[in-house]
């Protein structure tokens, strides 16, 4: 450690902030791409802490493996998610932390969200008896849709289900939220799902009023119009069939976290508190300030080739097995359409013989 005391503290605080805030942002932001970037910040912070702990090789390894390897894989996988940009969820129920880390997700977030909420409120006021309010709300929703169609989000289920307002703008971000509300007006089933898990767990935080408003409004709505249950219902049956966790499709789109979020936060905070409490309770380990060799890569290499050779070989074998496993899982035969292709191939072979038979007969 060549750094002075203050420099060490400054570096430590800097990397700690980077690490912890990066992890917190990864966990709480609504955009999955953004959470990947936050995760990269957290990795860099941990690498800095490693270097500060004079484990230089591990710091470099951290950056190379985690950021160069895993994070690229993660960001690649994010492309397959429903809403990688988090545009749909941006206006949903968010705790203050989530608001902070997903700030600026879309430029007109606040205004639209308020308009959306106002619509909900209006719906609540007059919904049960005035169906033309729906029309008004649909219009507002579609307006909002048109405003930002640049956040691409392919939600084919919604497009199919809502084909009456069928639009290219169902790529929009608030589109799905507003369509969701308006759908819910027609579909008590879906709506219940939305209320149960999508919104209610945020009610404790700041949107109590609106959520209540929505609940009442749509409770008033649901008896009047239950005609379109089938559209969404049949799409989601595959995912709804298991017990009490039946989430509608809309709900799945709308919130990125499970309804168990408060419990999860409690568990996380409890773990941290218990660990920190234990640390503060027994803070003294036999800390030595003995001098150590600064040639850590050489030492590590000697250990890997000597004392820990079996572990090294075992991990190498694990890597090989992991590669084989990944390739095996991704083998072409496991694709659903491949069975169709095989059937096609066999059907392609058989007609040849069938065609040959008539020729033989003739």
């Amino acid at each position, binding site marked *: 450690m060549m750094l002075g005391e203050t420099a060490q503290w400054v570096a430590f605080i800097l990397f700690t902030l980077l690490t912890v805030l990066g992890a917190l942002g990864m*966990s709480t932001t609504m955009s999955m791409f953004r959470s990947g970037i936050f995760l990269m910040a957290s990795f860099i912070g941990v690498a800095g802490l490693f270097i500060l702990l004079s484990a230089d090789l591990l710091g470099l*390894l951290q950056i190379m493996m985690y950021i160069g390897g895993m994070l690229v894989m993660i960001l690649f996988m994010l492309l397959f998610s429903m809403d990688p940009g988090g545009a749909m969820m941006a206006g949903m129920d968010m705790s203050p932390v989530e608001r902070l880390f997903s700030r600026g997700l879309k430029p007109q977030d606040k205004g639209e969200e308020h308009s959306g909420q106002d619509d909900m409120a209006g719906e609540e006021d007059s919904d049960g008896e005035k169906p033309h309010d729906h029309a008004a709300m649909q219009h507002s929703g579609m307006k909002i849709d048109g405003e930002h169609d640049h956040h691409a989000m392919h939600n084919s289920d919604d497009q199919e289900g809502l084909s009456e307002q069928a639009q290219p703008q169902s790529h929009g971000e608030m589109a799905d939220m507003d369509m969701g509300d308006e759908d819910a007006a027609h579909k008590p089933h879906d709506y219940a799902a939305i209320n149960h898990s999508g919104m209610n767990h945020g009610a404790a935080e700041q949107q109590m009023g609106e959520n209540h408003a929505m609940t009442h409004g749509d409770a008033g709505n649901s008896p009047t119009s239950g005609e379109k249950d089938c559209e969404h219902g049949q799409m989601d049956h*595959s995912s709804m069939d*298991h017990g009490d966790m039946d989430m509608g499709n809309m709900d799945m789109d709308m919130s990125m976290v499970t309804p168990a979020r408060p419990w999860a936060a409690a568990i996380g905070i409890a773990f941290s508190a218990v660990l920190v409490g234990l640390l503060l309770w027994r803070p003294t380990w036999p800390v030595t300030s003995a001098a150590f060799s600064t040639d850590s890569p050489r030492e590590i290499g000697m250990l890997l080739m000597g004392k820990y050779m079996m572990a090294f070989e075992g991990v190498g074998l694990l890597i090989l097995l*992991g590669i084989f*496993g990944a390739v095996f899982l991704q083998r072409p035969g496991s694709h659903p359409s491949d069975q169709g292709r095989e059937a096609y191939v066999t059907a392609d072979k058989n007609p040849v013989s069938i065609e040959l038979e008539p020729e033989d007969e003739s």
Partner: protein
Amino acid sequence: MTIPLSAYLIVAALLFGIGIYTVVAQRSAVMVLMGVEVLLNAIGLNLIAFWRYVHPQDYSGQIFTILIVTVGAIEMAVGLAIMMLLYRNRQTQQVDDYQELKG
């Protein structure tokens, strides 16, 4: 050595709590894997801190961290392969849809 050992351990504890929250609360499988990565980072930070402050002459702590990183890489590769397979079969990434997988 001016920074106490407990400071690093507290940072690791915070990381661990955040990772547990992520694993439990997130709905997308990729986010769950990210939470697992944060958990592994917390463990590695703990190991390195203890190595540096308790046994700096013995490099076994760094060996353990290297093994953890490697196993994390394998876990990520296989986990993403499984997720890709599930995505191709179910067309979704939400772990709620994978409930039939439970024995």
